[in-house]
């Protein structure tokens, strides 16, 4: 397997009310790997939700923290644990999370894993801490997909949410765009140009096998999974223009969803499956509309400005991320769907392809820095920003995968 350039992460900004938390070194960790608690700390830090208190030393799960000292240092919670090799060569890693002011245990977890799963175990521990302290699921053990373009080569890659452990899923001499995860996280749908025209494929990640989901006369593009994972919304030009269709994920049963004389594209299901949001120029300029997933009348969603594209309804259904153009800049924006209030989340000018983290807290998107494509992420309140870049290559078309069950 060829070496894959790793994404490098830079973080700026922080959340408004960061929870002070200490992550102690885990007992036994030094003999196995330094990567355990350093990964946990980096995950929590990157979220912008925590203020990490350093230098608390080693704390095993079966010992009591020095609560008075931790309280004095301002920690609201402390995590400790242990990791040890089992007789069968596997490892057992334990987490214990304490409430410092109340001096009681908040959570205890056990993980049995191989040495190569150490990093993923660290992400799962960070998820457990995050969920316990914020009440929302953590997304550190999720994966992201994106396309890396180097000279004459396009690679669809899968990496951990922190950009590490990048693996190629597909390499091609022709462009690959619009990757999107199936709701179970086992498959990616995407558009490939390897046959000199856009064709939609569904790619099974475990078997590396794929099949054509849409290859009709004309162009086939913009796949979007229905929440049931059995159907895809796609854009086909087979009946003239670019129009929305629903196909079964195995490629059968294409039925037309929308009818307009212009462009309908970039479909995306709402999390409850009730609506399909999409971009259309039916009103003269590209704007975002939504249509009942079973068909019906389209309703316009964006009104301000002359270019609003790439709708991405949030997992909770309350907001929608999209790209808006103002003064020649393409920027990531967020709309409150109830009040229609909008907020621009970035200060860049070539933003594209937003993708929500499955807990809705962060939005991953593509942008450009110094003429090169990079991935960036911003918290949905706009406060925390991250950049993920690959040395000497263009990175684009990010898609954040679902929660790992």
């Amino acid at each position, binding site marked *: 397997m060829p070496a894959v350039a790793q994404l490098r992460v830079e973080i700026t900004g922080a959340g408004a009310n960061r929870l002070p938390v200490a992550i102690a070194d885990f007992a036994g960790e030094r003999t196995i790997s330094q990567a355990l608690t350093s990964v946990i700390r980096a995950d929590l830090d990157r979220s912008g939700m925590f203020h990490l208190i350093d230098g608390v030393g080693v704390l095993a799960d079966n010992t009591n923290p020095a609560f008075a000292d931790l309280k004095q240092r301002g920690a609201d919670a402390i995590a400790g644990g242990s990791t040890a090799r089992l007789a069968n060569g596997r490892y057992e890693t334990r987490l214990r999370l304490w409430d410092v002011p109340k001096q009681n245990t908040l959570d205890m977890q056990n993980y049995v894993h191989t040495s190569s799963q150490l990093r993923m175990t660290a992400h799962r521990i960070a998820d457990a801490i995050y969920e316990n302290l914020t009440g929302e699921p953590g997304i550190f053990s999720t994966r992201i997909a994106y396309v890396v373009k180097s000279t004459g080569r396009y690679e669809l890659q899968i990496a951990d949410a922190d950009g590490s452990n990048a693996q190629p899923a*597909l*390499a*091609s*001499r022709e*462009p690959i*765009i*619009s990757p999107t995860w199936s709701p179970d996280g086992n498959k990616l749908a995407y558009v*490939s*140009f*390897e*046959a*000199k*025209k*856009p064709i939609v*494929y569904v790619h099974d990640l475990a078997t590396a096998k*794929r*099949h*054509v*989901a849409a*290859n*009709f*006369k*004309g*162009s086939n*593009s*913009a796949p979007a999974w229905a929440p049931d994972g059995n159907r895809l919304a796609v*854009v086909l*030009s087979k009946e*003239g*223009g*670019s129009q929305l269709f629903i196909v079964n994920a*195995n*490629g*059968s049963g294409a039925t037309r969803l929308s009818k307009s004389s212009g*462009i309908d*594209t*970039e479909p995306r299901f709402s999390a409850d499956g009730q609506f399909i949001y999409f*971009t259309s120029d039916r009103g003269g300029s*590209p704007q975002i509309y939504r249509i009942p997933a079973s068909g019906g009348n389209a309703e316009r969603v964006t009104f301000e400005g002359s*270019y609003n*594209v*790439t709708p991405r309804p949030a997992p909770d259904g309350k907001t929608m991320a999209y*790209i808006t*153009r103002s003064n020649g800049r*393409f920027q990531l924006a967020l709309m409150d769907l109830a009040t229609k209030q909008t907020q621009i989340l970035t200060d860049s000018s070539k933003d*594209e*392809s937003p993708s929500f983290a499955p807990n809705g807290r962060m939005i991953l998107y593509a942008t450009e820095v110094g*003429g090169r494509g990079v991935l960036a992420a911003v918290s949905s309140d706009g406060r925390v920003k991250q950049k993920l870049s690959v040395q000497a290559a263009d990175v684009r*078309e990010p898609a954040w995968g679902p929660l790992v069950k």
Partner: protein
Amino acid sequence: MRTHLLFSSLALTLILSACGSQPPAPEQNAAGVESRNPSSVDAGTSTTTSPVDRFDPLSVAALKDPRSPLSKRSVYFDYDSYSVKDEYQSLLVAHSKFLAANASMKILIQGNADERGSREYNLALAQKRSDAIKKSLSLLGVPESQMESVSLGEEKPTCTEATEECWAQNRRGDMLYSGEF
């Protein structure tokens, strides 16, 4: 004798082009559910590398002969525009005559867009361009069965600078014939 020479040079060209073609990438063995009719490589197109003395304006060889208007394959569009300009009418007439004379040949029209904005929206905009060229050819009598209009969106720019001059080159439709796609 002359025929014989031409034949052997044609055979050689075919062998060379077969050797020179890229090995199939592993991802190209996809099981299609509804595949486009794979257009077989027309042996005739390889004669373009052979010397042709007399210029037949409707022959397959004319497609790559710089003396023929058929060697011109690109139609350029104005910004935010999807209508074929009058200056391309004579070019499209030449291509429509060629397609009428060569009923077994098919044409793939690829639309392109400049890089600004959403990739998928640009894909749809570029489809409008290839559809416009297809419509022009259709009005000139070319049957639907001989044509396919598709879009490459902003994915295959011929020019990569972020300048208006460059973007103009990417607002384009290209015509490819059987054997070229």
